[in-house]
Every structure is written in structure tokens, then in C-alpha cells.
């Protein structure tokens, strides 16, 4: 059971603050979704947690502050799925998922049979076994997305960071990918932070939403609490209706200004 916490996290690029004093603590197994307009700092929070950008303040796993120097320790605890992963088209599916074992392999050695077992199990679980020898270039967008998640699972890290996991997918594959992540969370108790643009989907899957604007947290809570048309108008500059379904689903519908 693993928690992740942020204490006064600030990130600047070229002296400009992208994230200013971000605080949060997730309970174990929670799914937190960061929402907000482009440039609000959602991705920066995830990239800082993954150790990809320098930051001030601290990120802690189970109350242990992540040492700034050890990429390996961090990768054993936090798996990161980038928004647009680099896909070496001529690499095989198996080898790609095997990369997820990197944090456990010391500098000069190679994968152990345990590493291969883990990869085999992950491929099995994600229904990718039949692709094992295919090269990445021959897969469809939805399959690639599942593969990137597979690599993150092979990391066996208890915290998953998903940066726009569905932005490149059609509605069917969006649902598939999110269902997969949700199922894995229930099965294996992952703690998840995602950044998402689709507010309806964000509200549907996340336990809690945090709305960010210009590097600050401006609202947080359940979908019902955060997704209000005034709030969205203020921070996104969007004119949208918010519709509440009987089962509690919150639907955000953009409005057209004039209709013939």
C-alpha cells in the first residue's frame, strides 16, 4: 500500500513559474486526476514526480522523500506513461515491455529469468501475448497505448503517472484504456495520478479532481464539486452546460453560441 505526497512543489522554466506551491497527498489506491487548460501545469507536476524536470519542494513516497539523485529508486516506485511516447518502430513488443525492468537491472548486467517472468505475466494480463514478436511499427494506436501501459506495469511500481493517456485514441479505445487502468487499480492497488483533457471521462474514472490554472490549484473535489459551468467558464473560458445523470455521472457539454 503506497501513498504519494507533494509538499510545496514548484517548477520554473527559464525563471517563469509553471507550478507554484503544489501540495497534495493521495491515499493508497486513489485515482487523482489533474485537469485545467493548456499550460496550467498539469504535465509539469507529473514530470516532476517522474524526475524529468528540476523542482523545489519535495515529492514523497510513503512519507519517504524521493532522493534527488537516484533515478533508479524513483523508477522502482513511480512508473510514468508520457503523453506521446517515443516508439522505436523496429523494436519488438517483447523487448519494449522488457525495458520496464530497467530499474531492477544493475549497470552492467542483463535481465534475469525473474524479469522475463514478469514481462510474460504482464503481456498475458494485457492480452498482448500474441504480439510478442511483432515490431512496434506494425501495431495500431490502441495497441501501442496498451503496450506503453504494459511497460509501465513491468516496472512493478506502485504509483502510476498517466499524462493524457487517451488523447490520441478514438472513443472506444479511450474507454478500453481507462477501463484497463481502472481494472488494474482494483486488482493490484495502484495509486494513480493522471492529467486529462476530457472532463467527462476524468470525472467518470477519478476519485478526485484537482483543477489547475496558471500553476495554482484553484478547485478540488469530486466531479460534482469541481465540474460546474461557472468554474469552467472562469478558468477554461468555455461556455458549457453541465449535466448530472441519475447514476451520478457528470457530463460536460460545450455550447454553441448561435444555432440556425
Amino acid at each position, binding site marked *: 500500500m503506497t501513498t504519494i505526497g507533494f509538499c510545496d512543489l514548484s517548477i520554473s522554466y527559464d525563471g517563469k513559474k509553471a507550478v507554484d506551491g503544489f501540495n497534495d497527498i493521495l491515499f493508497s489506491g486513489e485515482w487523482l486526476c489533474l485537469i485545467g487548460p493548456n499550460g496550467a501545469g498539469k504535465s509539469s507536476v507529473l514530470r516532476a514526480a517522474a524526475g*524529468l524536470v528540476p523542482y523545489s519542494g519535495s515529492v514523497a513516497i510513503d512519507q519517504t522523500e524521493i532522493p534527488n539523485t537516484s533515478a*533508479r529508486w524513483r523508477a*522502482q516506485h513511480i512508473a510514468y506513461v508520457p503523453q506521446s511516447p*517515443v516508439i522505436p518502430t523496429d523494436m519488438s513488443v517483447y523487448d519494449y515491455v522488457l*525495458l520496464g525492468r*530497467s530499474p531492477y537491472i544493475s*549497470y552492467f548486467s*542483463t535481465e534475469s529469468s525473474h524479469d522475463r517472468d514478469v514481462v510474460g505475466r504482464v503481456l498475458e494480463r494485457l492480452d498482448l501475448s500474441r504480439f510478442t514478436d511483432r515490431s512496434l511499427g506494425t501495431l495500431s494506436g490502441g495497441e501501442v497505448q496498451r503496450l506503453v501501459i504494459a511497460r509501465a506495469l513491468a516496472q512493478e511500481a506502485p504509483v502510476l503517472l498517466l499524462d493524457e493517456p487517451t488523447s490520441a485514441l478514438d472513443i472506444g479505445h479511450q474507454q478500453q484504456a481507462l477501463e484497463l487502468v481502472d481494472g488494474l487499480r482494483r486488482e493490484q492497488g495502484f495509486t494513480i495520478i493522471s492529467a486529462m483533457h476530457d472532463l467527462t471521462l476524468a470525472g467518470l474514472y477519478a476519485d478526485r479532481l484537482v483543477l489547475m490554472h496558471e500553476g495554482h490549484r484553484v478547485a478540488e473535489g469530486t466531479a460534482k464539486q469541481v465540474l460546474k459551468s461557472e468554474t469552467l467558464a472562469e478558468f477554461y473560458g468555455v461556455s458549457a452546460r453541465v449535466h448530472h445523470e441519475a447514476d451520478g455521472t457528470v457530463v460536460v457539454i460545450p455550447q454553441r453560441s448561435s444555432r440556425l
Partner: protein
Amino acid sequence: MVVVVIIAGVMIGPAGPEWWRIPLELLDRLPFVSIDSGISKIDWNIVMQIRAPRVVLAALIGSMLSLAGASYQGVFRNPLVDPYLLGVAAGSGLGATLIFALGNASTSTWMINPLPLAAFSGGLIAVFSTYMLGTAFGKNRSSTTLVLAGIAVTSLFTAIQTFVLQRNNDVVRQVYSWILGRLSSATWGDVRLVLPYIVISGGVLLSHRRLLDVMRVGDDEALALGINVRRVRLIVVVAATMGTAAAVAVSGLIGFVGIIVPHTVRLLAGASYRLVLPLSVLLGAVFLVAADIPSRVLSNPAETPIGVITAFFGAPFFLILLRSREASR
């Protein structure tokens, strides 16, 4: 294949015994075998003291350049990168030019031949400058800054070299032939000179083959997978540069090997660095030893620069391979 080419390399040459006598002589040297190969002592000396070191040196340098090329392509994630990318060539060129300009007369009395030494240090100085510049200005982790710094340093060193050449017209020819690369003057001394560098550099590079595979997903993702990207890049660049500089120091600039060999391996065996690195070592040795054969017999008794041969035969071969690969898709 390596063995066959090396034996062919030892057998074929403009001077010395007929080629078929050499295997006989080798057999004769085996215990309990006695064949009269008809090779005189002088001829045998030509083989052992002139041809053999040349073949061994060609194999070493071919391996080193291919391995360095493949490694550079890995850490910079750029298939067009060659071992001379970060300024080794320009630096070594300048070092060699200065020695030529000083004149062989003033250096012939020195204890050791200063040419390889000057080329070696010139190469290292150039790459060191590139690295300092690239990391001083490039605050982000991008490798582009490093490559651009390499281009700047190369231009600077080439400019100085051109200036020196302008002032010393008489050595243009020597410098030119050095730049085209040659193995003609190879001795066992040269082999001993480069061997330690190539062995160390080769060992370090080969041990990074798994990490180079991880780096194929880019700096960010490799970092998120727990790889210290900067450290790996620094170590690989230093090792590849050291090996390349040593190779250039004794053989001049032999172009094309560092690009064509790794790519041929990729087309034949796939892109995983676990295969590309060791196979580049083997194929690089074969390629350069083979290329050296026409280089010494083609315009007998003169030598055709080996850089000309590698490009002349390498380029069409590479195109054919590329074409057949595309066709089979």
C-alpha cells in the same frame, strides 16, 4: 568469415611470394607437417613484418570505427552520426597538419614518431572543447546542443588547419594523403600503440549495449525508467572518442566505415544494440581488411587511399542492401 578475409589479406599483396604458397608455409609450421612451400626467408619477412601487421591493424581499426559509429548513433539517437561527429577528425587533422608543417626534418630525430601522438591529442582536445561548450550553453538535456557544438568546433579547427596549410604549401600533399587515410606504413609498433585504447574502449562500449537499447525510447523515458542518461552518454562518448582518436592517429581518416557497417548490421540483424554492437565489431574488421586488399593492388605499385576504396565499394553495396530491404517489405 573474419578468418577467411584475414588470411586472404595476408596472402594478397604486390610484393612477396605467390599467394598460394602462404597457406602451405603456414601448414609447414604446424608440428608434424612438413611441406616445402618454396618461400624464402625474405619473402616470409615481407609477409610477417609488412602484411600481417597491416591486416591486424585494418581489423582493429575497422572494428573500432564501426563500434564507435554504432555507439554514437545510439547515444545521440541519430542514424546519420559518424565517429567523427564531435570533432575528432578536425582535431586530429589539425594535430597532424601542425606536425607536417613543423617539418619531418625537425622531428625525425625525436625518440618517437610524433604524428600519431599529435593526432591523438588533437582529437581529444577537439572533443573535449565540444563537450565543454555543449554542456555550458545547453542547460537542458538535449543532445542537439552537443552536436551543434561539434559542428562549430569542427569548423574552427578546420579553419585553423586551412590557415596553417596556406602558410605551408609544401606539405599539402602529405596532409591530403593523411586525411584520406592509409594503412600502408603499418607496423607491429602501430598495432601495439592502438591496441590498449581499442581494447578498453571496445570493452566499455560493448558493456553498454543493453543501456543503449533503453535509450532508444528517448532521454525522458529512459530517465523515467531509472537510467542516468547523462552519465551513460558521457561514458559512451568518452570511450568511443578515445578509441576513434587512437584509430585516427595511426591510420588517418578512413571515412564511411562508422556509418555503413552499423547500418548494414541493422538491415541484416535488426536494430537491437545487443546485436548491433558485437556484430559491428566483426563486420567492421572484415570490411576494412577486405577494402585494404584492392587498396594495395589496384594501382600497383602505388597505393590507392583506403578511404577511397571504402566509399567506392561501400556506398553502392549499401544502396543495394537498402533497396533489397525496402523491396522485401
